[in-house]
């Protein structure tokens, strides 16, 4: 099966004042693959996610998305437009709507696939509004069961444990039926058992055809699940390849362990 590129970064550069956070980064993400972005702290991984999801606007470069490439670039699109195109994400430091329940958080994720306008709120008895709310509820229920958080549905998100919150955030991102999932350190703070469950879950999502771009520190997660690994250091791509190839790459070893180790 030929690999089709779903996300295509071309020479993406982002500067903060005099600091170049991303320096002409290019790589492709093939549909249905798990691609990991690794690198030391401050390498620009989260900045890269922020550029893809529209939170930050890169000064230079293009970000193509979608098999048909209906748009030339995501650069310049607002975050909510990019979310509507089918890119969902989670955050390094979990950002749930703390005062809302687990169910409400996940329903918020379905919002992009519904109309849910002012008229629907004033007059919610139309056939379409009814179908949409039924679809959204059904979707949320299935995700909660799958991630084993259905028992927590009516609890406020802020009352959950860290591992539970991570699962709610994942469910909220999946609720939008994305084509591509951006996960920012999803294994951080998880127990060994939870981490294993996460890896199984990511593999299952890939099986279903979802494309995943992953930022992760934990090499015990990255190496077994990734199809492809991109290595950043000081904002520049220093290597990419299969997990095995990247692990043997001299520049990667240097970036991670320092020159002294060579």
């Amino acid at each position: 099966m030929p690999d089709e590129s779903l996300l295509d970064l071309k020479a993406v550069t982002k500067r903060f004042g005099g600091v170049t956070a991303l320096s002409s980064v290019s790589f492709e993400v093939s549909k249905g693959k798990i691609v990991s972005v690794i690198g030391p702290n401050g390498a620009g991984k989260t900045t890269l996610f922020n550029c893809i999801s529209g939170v930050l606007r890169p000064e230079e470069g293009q970000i193509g998305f979608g098999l048909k490439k209906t748009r030339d670039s995501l650069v310049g699109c607002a975050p909510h437009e990019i979310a509507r195109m089918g890119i969902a994400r989670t955050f390094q430091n979990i950002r749930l709507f703390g005062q809302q329940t687990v169910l409400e958080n996940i329903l918020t994720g379905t919002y992009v696939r519904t109309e849910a306008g002012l008229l629907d709120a004033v007059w919610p008895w139309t056939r379409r509004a009814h179908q949409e709310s039924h679809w959204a509820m059904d979707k949320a229920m299935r995700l909660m069961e799958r991630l084993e958080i259905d028992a927590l549905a009516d609890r406020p998100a802020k009352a959950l444990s860290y591992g539970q919150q991570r699962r709610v955030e994942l469910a909220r991102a999946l609720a939008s039926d994305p084509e591509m999932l951006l996960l920012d350190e999803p294994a951080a703070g998880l127990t060994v058992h939870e981490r294993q469950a996460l890896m199984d879950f990511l593999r299952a999502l890939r099986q279903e055809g979802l494309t995943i771009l992953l930022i992760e520190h934990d090499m015990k997660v990255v190496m077994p699940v990734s199809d492809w690994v991109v290595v950043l250091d000081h904002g520049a791509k220093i290597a990419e390849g299969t997990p095995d190839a990247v692990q043997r790459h001299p520049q990667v070893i240097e970036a991670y362990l320092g020159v002294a180790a060579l």
Partner: protein
Amino acid sequence: MTGEQLFLQQLLNGLTIGAVYALIALGYTMVYGIIQLVNFAHGEIFMIGAYFGLSLFACFAAQAGAAISIGVLALGLIVAAAGSALLGFCIDRSAYRPLRKAPKLSALITAIGVSFVLQNTVMLIYGAQDRYVPSLAAAGSMDWMGVHWTAMQGLIFAVSLFLMIGLQWVVYRTPLGRSMRAVAQDPLAAQLMGISVDRVIAITFLIGSGLAGVGGVLFGVYYSTINFHDGYLTGLKAFTAAVLGGIGNIPGAMVGGLLLGLLEGLGAGYLSSQWKNVIAFGVLVLVLLIRPRGLLGERVGDRA
């Protein structure tokens, strides 16, 4: 009039005006909850709502000053709600949205400026003198338990209660309300879930301003007059009500409005009606000193 009758009468009068305060306070609290802006032009939106009603009543009156039927009043409420909603939307679009990324103080000062612009525009169009607002035709009243109840008071309660329950429904039971609460808690995360923050803010202005417009017509018909500077004082009192209930908190604005009206009514009955404003703003000072987060508000730290 016995002591008990005086108490009940002032209770009723206080709750009536309190219901109007609550309608206006909702707009303050919704906008604050979502963009942390005290929209000082909100009182003017309320006042202009009353003038929208006045203009419509003038079209239907057989002769100047004739009383209006319940149907015309209902039409006036709808027109004022729509007109004020649109006005609030335009204010946000033209004056506040360009300043969304500016320091909060810029938007606040702009709000004060918008308030002056609106006041003076209304003064130039309708004149500086009090304008007579026709009363409801064949509006009965009754004496029960020695208390004088008017139909207009009943109507104010009914309309306010209906709108407040409706708003609760929208905010806590619909997808739109869910996205409004999401934006209030974390605008960036909401945006990354595909929610257009600007659209949600625009809808918040539409709803809050529409409620103020309805409040304006009810206020005008109840007191029989309206003046271009009525929005200033009443707006500040509604803001006090929002702070009393906990600014940013929707049930808080309703409770705060009714409670402030009640305190004013009782104060007017037992001290003198000249003490009304002293009581209202005394409440504001006391709340800010003793319980800045208001009756139902969360601690500010919890928001972050």
